[in-house]
């Protein structure tokens, strides 16, 4: 670590002598906002962990408008921030235009592939993790009906849903999965009230486990599930602690690790294509003291078996986005 420190110091000195104002990394949050208790917050968590461990500082911005994507990228790059990490697929187009203008700056984009020599593209196999929590949900369900609440109706979220349904059906082929999307506009990422209403509607239809893949909207889903005494499944971050004993598990997408690694690598960031899946620990389901009483050894064994099968390539979970269809409903 101390070697790393020295190196970072040296890099900063070089950058300073080159006239740049700062050589700290920058993190750009997508429109969902930093504290969504989910995707963006996971990224923030990774950056905070890096800052605490290294004593470094980082620049950050929460976007307010689409036009700011390019602005934030350029302003940070011009100010000498390196690397610049951004969360969300929506940066893809802008980054592929901006990156060539700053060949000395390294960029890391999460959830999207941008083919540029100075960009690291990190994508996650969310369908694999959703499959695992789907298995978990089906085993925990007594009614044989489970729910899925998505955020905005886009292919990425259908990918979550499709993996989830496959996992449910793998355990119980007769299970019913009720699927709802919160909305069709970006506001759907941050609408806990609507999330709560959808949860109530799904409970009325018999669902007793609900999986929320909806960013900030999921907070409302988990809250209502806890209030109505059914189980819920969190997403992106480990959300088990939000309602201890009421959240069955969380589908963890280790965005924090991706951000942490990018910032640790600093200006040496390895560029290229980087898939985070079950196999390399980028995707997992959460087990901790908050849900230990909800998951029996038997349930866990079954899910872990599938996890190993996915990791070894024996079990292939269908990826909705590969052909825009889902084999199961």
């Amino acid at each position, binding site marked *: 670590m101390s070697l790393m420190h020295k190196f970072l110091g040296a890099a900063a000195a070089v950058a300073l002598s080159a006239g740049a104002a700062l050589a700290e990394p920058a993190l750009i949050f997508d*429109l969902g*906002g*930093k504290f969504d208790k989910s995707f963006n917050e996971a990224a923030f968590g990774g950056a905070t962990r890096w800052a605490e461990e290294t004593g470094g500082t980082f*620049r950050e*911005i*929460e*976007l*307010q*408008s*689409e*036009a*700011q994507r*390019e*602005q*934030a990228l*350029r*302003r*940070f790059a011009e100010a000498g921030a390196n690397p610049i990490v951004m969360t969300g*697929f*929506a940066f*893809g*187009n802008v980054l592929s235009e*901006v990156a060539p*203008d700053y060949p000395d700056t390294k960029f890391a984009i999460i*959830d*999207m592939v941008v083919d540029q020599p100075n960009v690291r593209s990190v994508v996650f196999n969310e369908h694999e993790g959703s499959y695992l929590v789907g298995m978990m949900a089906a085993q925990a369900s007594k009614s044989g009906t489970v729910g899925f609440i998505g955020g905005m*109706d*886009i*292919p*990425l979220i259908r990918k979550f849903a499709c993996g989830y349904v496959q996992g449910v059906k793998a355990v119980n082929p007769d299970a019913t999965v009720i699927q709802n999307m919160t909305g*069709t*506009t*970006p506001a759907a990422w941050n609408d806990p009230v609507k999330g709560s209403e959808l949860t109530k509607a799904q409970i009325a239809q018999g669902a007793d486990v609900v999986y929320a893949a909806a960013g900030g909207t999921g907070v409302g889903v988990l809250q209502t599930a806890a209030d109505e005494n059914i189980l819920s499944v969190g997403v992106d971050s480990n959300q088990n602690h939000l309602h201890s004993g009421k959240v069955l598990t969380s589908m963890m997408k280790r965005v924090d690790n991706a951000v942490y690694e990018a910032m640790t690598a600093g200006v040496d960031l390895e560029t290229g294509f980087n898939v985070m899946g079950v196999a390399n620990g980028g995707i997992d389901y959460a087990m901790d003291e908050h849900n230990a009483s909800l998951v029996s050894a038997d349930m866990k064994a079954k899910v872990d078996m599938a996890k190993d099968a996915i990791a070894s390539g024996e079990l292939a979970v269908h990826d909705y*986005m590969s052909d*825009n269809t889902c084999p199961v409903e």
Partner: protein
Amino acid sequence: MDKMPKWADIVLIPVISLLLAAFFSSLVILAIGESPVEAFKLMVDGALMRSAGWGYTLYYATNFMFTGLAVAVAFHARLFNIGGEGQAMIAGLGVALVCLYIPWPHWSLAILGASVGAALFGALWALIPAYLQARRGSHIVITTIMFNFIAAALLNYVLVELLRPVGAMDPASAKFPAGTHLPTFQDMFSTESSKMFRGAPANVTFFLALAACVFVWLLIWRTRLGYEIRAFGQSETAAKYAGISPVRITVIAMLISGALAGMMAVNTTMGESERLILNATEGAGFIGIAVALMGRNHPLGVCVAAILFGFLYQGGAELALWTNIPRELIVVIQALVILFTGALDNMVREPIEKLFIAMRRRNA
């Protein structure tokens, strides 16, 4: 004459409102432990002292000019068009279709085509609420708001199911072909030695917005139709008596309003993103209401107010970049300006009006 002088109405009241907003914003910034002077300096530096900053300010201002004019035109007929957002969204679809499916040889032709597409789609989206208001008496405020949601849902469907390139994750259309790329300020004003407006999205559409201001002024104050719109707005019964058809004026005013709101799509969709994205309007349709209120529904006022709001947007971005002021508080600051210049207009107006009248009495 129980009226205050015109300069007070046009200049003094907005300035006092702004100062009040600035005062309360300072309190907000102080409350979270940042320095208001520093923050204001950052905003001015970032938005007005760099050419790229102006590029962003004018880019936002272009949107607000179009939507502000849209609200203003409808308001002259006493129609409250809250649907600028939806009209601009659907107009974006018009722009995208024109840009994607017609092979344009040069941007100058493409912008004409795209403007027609935007105006047509925007106007059509305003037509249904207009018809419902004119014929059925369904209140235009309610219907236009509802149409915003329908527009968002429709656009989402079209983007996700129809226009999205196969395999793409982003709910957005394909990139427009090169022939439709509008020259940005950077292309227009940069010289070999100095790069101006680097990376800023302001583009040639800004001049289209200025032209629209002139057009609206001519329309409202120099044409028969404008006279009819104003007459109808002042008194429907009198207009009817004079042989002006309320149905006709309602529909025409809303069509023009919708077309103007739609024109902002040329700026965002064709000028900035160069593809159709879901969230291209970002509330500009609603900001247009504040812009029109502040600009007293006069094109010149709308133009100035739009630049002010452009400054607030760009300045807000600078605050977000370089300070720890969270974006929610930046929205609060922007909202305070809207509150004081728009909603609380009478709070400033009435005392000042009384003051002027009192002064006049004393002089008389």
